[in-house]
C-alpha cells in the first residue's frame, strides 16, 4: 500500500514538470511587455523599467526563469504578481470559491447520477429508464454555456428562485445554481455509466446468491449490486474533479463567480506568467491527487484488488 502510493507519487513528478514546463514556455512566448502594460500610455524612466524587469527576473533567459519558479514553488513562496500583490494571497482568495463550486457540482452529479442510474439500470427498458436516457442525451448535447444562460434567465430572472449572479458573497446557497449548471453534463455521464454497470451486474451469480440467502432487496441492491458497479463511476468522478475546477471558466463567467476561472482569464489577458503557472500547478496537483484517491478507493470497493504484487 505505502509502496504503491510512493510509486504513484514518483510517477507524478515527470507529469508535473512536463505540464508546468509546457505552460511556462507558452506563457513565456506570449507577445506584449507586461512591464510596459503596467504603465499604460505613460513612458516611465528607463531605470524604473530595468529595476522592475530584474525584480521579476524578466531579463533572465527562459531556463533561469523556469528554475527560479520551481525553486519558489518548493519553498512555498510564490512571489508577487506584476501589480505587487502576493500571488499566494490572491490564490487563497479564489481557490476556496472554485473548490466550493466544484465540490457542490461533484456532490450533485454523484448523488443524483448514481441514484437515477441505479433505478434506470434495475428496470432496464422501463418507462423511467427510457425517460432518463433521453433526458441525459439532451443534457449532453446542449453546451454548458447555453444551459447557463437559460437557467440564469429562467430561474434567476423570470422565476426569481435564485440570484442570477453570485458576485462577492459566494457561499453554498448562492453557488447552487452555477453548481447545477456545471454538474449537469457530467451528471448525464455518471447516470449512463451507473446504469450500464448496474444492469450488467444485476444478473451476476453473487447477486443471485445474496437474494437466495434471504437478504432484503435494498441490502442486495446497495451492498452487492451498487458496490460492485461503482468502480467505473468512481474513476470517472475522480478524473472529473480536475476538469470541474479548471473547466469552470465558462460557468464562472456567466454567473460572475470570483473564482479560479475568472482569475486565470484575467491573468492570460495581462500575460501574468507567474500567476498563470501557479494556478495551473495547483490544478495539476488537484487532478493528480484526485486520481490517486480513486485508485485507493478501488481496494475498498473491491477487496480483491491488491496494490503490491
Amino acid at each position, binding site marked *: 500500500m505505502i509502496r504503491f502510493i510512493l510509486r504513484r507519487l514518483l*510517477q507524478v513528478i*515527470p*507529469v508535473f514538470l*512536463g*505540464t508546468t514546463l*509546457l*505552460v511556462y514556455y*507558452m*506563457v513565456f*512566448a*506570449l*507577445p506584449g511587455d507586461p512591464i510596459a502594460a503596467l504603465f499604460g500610455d505613460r513612458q516611465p524612466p528607463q531605470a524604473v523599467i530595468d529595476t522592475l524587469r530584474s525584480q521579476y527576473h524578466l531579463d533572465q533567459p527562459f531556463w533561469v526563469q523556469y528554475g527560479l519558479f520551481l525553486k519558489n514553488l518548493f519553498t512555498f513562496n510564490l512571489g508577487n504578481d506584476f501589480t505587487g500583490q502576493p500571488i499566494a494571497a490572491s490564490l487563497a482568495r479564489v481557490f476556496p470559491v472554485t473548490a466550493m463550486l466544484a465540490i457542490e457540482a461533484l456532490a450533485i452529479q454523484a448523488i443524483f447520477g448514481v441514484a437515477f442510474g441505479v433505478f434506470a439500470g434495475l428496470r432496464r427498458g422501463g418507462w423511467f429508464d427510457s425517460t432518463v436516457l433521453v433526458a441525459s*442525451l*439532451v443534457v*449532453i*448535447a*446542449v*453546451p*454548458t*454555456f*447555453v444551459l447557463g*444562460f*437559460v437557467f440564469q*434567465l429562467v430561474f434567476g*430572472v423570470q422565476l426569481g428562485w435564485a440570484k442570477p449572479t453570485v458576485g462577492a458573497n459566494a457561499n453554498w446557497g448562492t453557488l447552487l445554481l452555477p453548481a447545477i449548471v456545471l454538474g449537469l453534463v457530467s451528471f448525464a455521464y455518471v447516470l449512463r455509466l451507473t446504469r450500464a454497470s448496474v444492469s450488467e451486474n444485476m444478473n451476476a451469480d453473487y447477486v443471485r446468491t445474496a437474494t437466495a440467502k434471504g437478504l432484503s432487496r435494498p441490502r442486495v441492491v446497495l451492498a452487492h449490486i451498487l458496490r460492485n458497479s461503482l468502480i467505473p463511476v468512481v474513476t470517472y468522478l475522480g478524473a472529473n474533479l*480536475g*476538469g470541474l475546477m*479548471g*473547466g469552470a*471558466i*465558462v460557468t464562472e*463567467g456567466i454567473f460572475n463567480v470570483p473564482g479560479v*476561472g475568472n482569475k*486565470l*482569464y484575467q491573468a*492570460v489577458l495581462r*500575460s501574468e506568467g507567474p500567476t*498563470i503557472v501557479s494556478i*495551473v500547478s495547483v*490544478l*495539476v496537483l488537484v*487532478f*493528480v491527487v484526485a486520481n490517486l484517491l480513486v485508485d485507493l478507493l478501488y481496494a475498498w470497493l473491491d477487496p480483491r484488488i491488491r496494490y503490491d504484487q
Partner: protein
Amino acid sequence: MTSNNSHFVAPIEETPLQATDAVKTDQAPLSLWADAWRKLRRRPLFIISALLILALIVIALFPGLFTSTPPNEGCELGNSEGAPTAGHPFGFTFQGCDVYSRVIHGTQASLSVGLLSVLCVLVIGVTIGAIAGYYGGWIDAVLARLGDIFFALPLVLAALVITQLPLFRENKSVWTVVFVISLLAWPQMARITRGAVIEVRNSDFVTAARSLGVSKFGALIRHVLPNALAPIIVLATLELGVFIVAEATLSFLGIGLPQSIMSWGNDIAGAQASIRTRPEIMLYPAAALSITVLSFIMLGDAVRDALDPKSRQR
C-alpha cells in the same frame, strides 16, 4: 479474435454431424463488420441519426440550396432583434442579420471543426496508442507520461494561452481550433487504442501470423489494428459531438473561430446581448448545435451496441 475463433468449424470430412450442423459451411462466416452492419440497418436509432447527419453534410456543402438570403450582406440595423417576417422565418439578430441564413451557413464551420479534429485525433492517438500497447516496456511508460501531461491540462486554459501565441494570434482559422482540440484530446484516444491493442496482441492468430513469417510491424498493421478498431470507432463518433461543443465553447469565449467565420458558437456568443429581450435568437443556433451533437451521440451508441459481442446474444 471474434470472427476467427467463434465461427470455428471442424473440417467437413471428419465430422459425422455435417447434415445436422447448423453452420453453413459453403458460406463464409459473417465478419464482425458485416454482422454489425446487418444489425445497424434494422435499428431506427441508427437510421434516424444517419439521415440527420446526411442532411447536415448536404447543408454544410451546399448552403445555397436552403436559403437564398446572404448571411452577412443586407444586415440592416433597423431590423435589429426584429421579429420573424416573410422570407426570414427565424427573425433578425442584434446586428439585423437574418438568423435562419446564419444558422444554415454556420453548419459548415462547426462540422468541419468536428470532422477535422476527429481525423487528427485518430491519426495521433491511434499511432501513439498502438505503439505503446504493442511494444510495451519503456516506450509504453514514456508515451503514457507524455499523454498524462496533455491530459492534465484543462482545454479552455490551454486554448486561452495557445491562441494568444504570436503564431496563431494574427491568422486564426478553422485549423487553429482543430490544432488546440487535437493537441489536448489525443491522450484519450491513445488510451483506448492502447487497451484494445493489448487485448488483441497476444491472440492466437497474431502468433500464427508471426510464425508464418510476418514481421512484427506488419502483424501490427495487418492483424492487430484491424481487430482493435471497434472501441476506436465508437470513441471517434462520440468525440465528434464533443469537439463540436468544444468549438462552440471556445468561439463563445472569443478564443475560437474569428468573427469573420460563421459558426454556431459565434452566433450564440453574438446572441448574448439579446438574451433578456429575445432569447430565441440564441436558441436557434443552439438547437442546431444540439441536434448535430445528438445525432453523433446516437450514431455512436448504435454502433457500440452493434459491435458489442455481449449485446448480440440477446
